[in-house]
């Protein structure tokens, strides 16, 4: 174990790797700071660059982009009032008013320091939680694994999007897409309809790039109020000094907020389907509820900035818990990380930590190192980021689309993947316009083959289907899946009722106003 740790430490702290990680962290921050450019997109576009690297170095570079990206949204949130990524929505509430009131440097420092502490806390939890969970997972049979995937899929569908049914349909479409090509056990060709293009199946990274990056980029070209806000908003001005010592002391004097927000982030990150886009809002909400002066939230309250940033950055460690210990990616970004590891010929699953402990330790170390880079690069380059945020959309969108094409081609050096990208991107955009959540679809593509493999293995072992319900862990997971669906139906109905009540109240007050004006 010590050997593996030292091997990982030596690998990650090589000067060339450290330099690449610093560049990757910077790239992650810049990418996430540009509105419309998500963390997943940044990680996807980094993937082809890591093909030529040794596995440890490649994973370290991608994790650096991930860690940098989770704090990058802070810059556009604080300086433009637009969350660069969905994970920085709650940051906008207080960081922007704080920056507008002449303290942009302090707002950024608070966010960066909170992100740093959040990342470190999440790494500690990951180190403590992942190995024992993996040791337990090694003992699971195909019945338990299948039940686990079913559970993960129900959570994904219930947490993403406005409509439960459309979420479930999207997840199943993802699984359906994954069945095209050779079947995972016998390699029998399915649904190729004689097209050579489909013989090898549809690579899930092409689906991921098409569905996520392309549809998101095309949406950025739509005329929206957000883009109008971006073009009309003037940059904030004022004190750009970081005041780091003051920020550190003021944050550590009230440690409860940052620790609570980080732990919430870790927990939400560990649940498949939930991620930083949810955790920042939940952490912010909890900080507001716990505050003695909730009325200051939304007006530049430092605790709000700390809660949101600690909440979103700490999801990185949490989301790696199911990936490392069970081989299940909790979010599209983790799915790309999983692909990056698999591209290097390393299989993902509970045996990862047993067979490649050096790689897993290098992930822990790389995340910690990237957190330090994120803090220092963020603090040192605050002024430069203000300029970078002004890159116009007419450059960003076509250039990133071209980068998507490069990423797709370099995966397998196959031109036919480019046609698939164009087709999947178009379908993804249409689905997005029709309000189908895309995250369940992408995760369905990843989880589908695992589900099929385990279901068929279970039946190969024994034709008795009742084993799914009589084996305790499998039964527990399937019960949790049913509870998850029932709970999401209940929350959906409650949410609809609340919305209807609010709409009715708004109509009544508008009517009252009309009457009083008359």
């Amino acid at each position, binding site marked *: 174990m010590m050997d593996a740790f030292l091997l990982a430490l030596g690998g990650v702290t090589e000067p060339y790797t450290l330099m690449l990680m610093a560049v990757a962290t910077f790239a992650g921050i810049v990418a996430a700071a540009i509105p419309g450019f998500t963390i997943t997109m940044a990680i996807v576009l980094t993937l082809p660059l890591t093909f030529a690297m040794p596995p440890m170095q490649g994973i370290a570079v991608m994790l650096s982009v991930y860690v940098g990206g989770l704090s990058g949204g802070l810059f556009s949130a604080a300086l433009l009032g637009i969350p660069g990524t969905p994970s920085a929505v709650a940051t906008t509430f207080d960081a922007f008013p704080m920056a507008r009131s002449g303290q942009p440097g302090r707002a950024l420092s608070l966010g960066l320091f909170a992100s740093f502490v959040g990342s470190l806390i999440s790494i500690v939890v990951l180190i403590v939680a992942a190995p024992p969970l993996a040791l337990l997972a090694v003992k699971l049979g195909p019945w338990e694994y299948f039940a686990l995937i079913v559970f993960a899929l129900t959570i994904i569908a219930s947490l993403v999007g406005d409509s439960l049914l459309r979420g479930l349909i999207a997840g199943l479409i993802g699984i*359906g897409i994954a069945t095209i090509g050779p079947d995972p056990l016998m390699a029998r060709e399915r*649904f190729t309809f004689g097209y050579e293009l489909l013989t090898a199946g549809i690579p899930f990274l092409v689906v991921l790039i098409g569905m996520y990056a392309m549809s998101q980029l095309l949406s950025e070209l739509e005329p929206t109020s957000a883009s109008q806000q971006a073009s009309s908003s003037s940059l904030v001005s004022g004190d750009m000094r970081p005041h780091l010592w003051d920020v550190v002391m003021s944050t550590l004097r009230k440690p409860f907020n940052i620790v609570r927000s980080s732990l919430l982030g870790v927990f939400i990150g560990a649940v498949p389907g939930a991620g930083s886009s949810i955790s920042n809002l939940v952490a912010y909400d909890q900080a507001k509820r716990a505050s003695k002066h909730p009325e200051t939230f939304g007006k530049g309250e430092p605790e709000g900035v700390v809660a949101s940033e600690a909440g979103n950055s700490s999801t990185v460690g949490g989301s790696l818990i199911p990936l490392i210990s069970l081989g299940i990616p909790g979010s599209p970004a983790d799915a790309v990380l999983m692909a990056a590891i698999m591209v290097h010929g390393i299989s993902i699953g509970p045996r990862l930590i047993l067979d490649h402990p050096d790689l897993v330790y290098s992930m822990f170390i790389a995340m910690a190192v990237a957190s330090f880079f994120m803090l220092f690069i963020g603090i040192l380059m605050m002024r430069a980021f203000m300029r970078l945020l002004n890159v116009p959309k007419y450059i960003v969108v076509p250039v990133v689309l071209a980068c998507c094409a490069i990423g797709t*081609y370099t995966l397998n050096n196959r031109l036919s993947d480019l046609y698939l990208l164009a087709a999947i991107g178009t379908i993804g955009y249409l689905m997005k316009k*029709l309000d189908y959540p895309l995250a369940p679809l992408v995760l369905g593509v990843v989880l589908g083959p695992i589900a099929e493999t385990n279901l068929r293995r279970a*039946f190969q072992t024994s034709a008795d289907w009742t084993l799914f319900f009589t084996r305790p862990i499998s039964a527990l997971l399937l019960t949790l899946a049913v509870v998850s669906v029932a709970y999401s139906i209940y929350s959906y109905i409650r949410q609809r009722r609340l919305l209807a009540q609010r709409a009715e109240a708004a109509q009544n007050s508008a009517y009252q106003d009309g009457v009083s004006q008359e």
Partner: protein
Amino acid sequence: MERKSPDAALVPTLQLASYVVLATGAIFMASRAGSLPASRWEPMGAGTFPQLIFSSIAVLCVAAFIMELAKRGIPRTTLHSAWRRLVALKSVLVNLGLFIAYMISMPFAGFILGTFCYLLLAQLFLAPRRPVTLLIVVGVALLFSIGPYYLFADVFSIYLPRAKW
């Protein structure tokens, strides 16, 4: 509860149409899966799992269709609304068209020429009409067409498509 304006009814109408298209596609795929030969070595053949998934999609689409109609009635939109929405999405559609043309032309035009033309046209369409932006547009198109080609070839030994003529 019917949608009041044709504009508001456009997306629900398209959603209903999407349920029909998806359900039809799913039924077709489920039937194809059913025709895959069974395995001698396992109770579940290669077609059982996909059949289960596509049948579930069809059932969910039918359920979503019925629930939508029961809850909100038939949405009434007009072709005029659809046309207006399409015109509003002009930038997206032109860019998507350019991107598809870029993907199709890549094997013949090669990466450098294809990317240069795509970036030039897409940026020219989106950028404000000013002399300085023309310079920026050409510079960006040159940088991001030639740059990645040589970066991948020389640093990563990955060769992006070359022109065939």
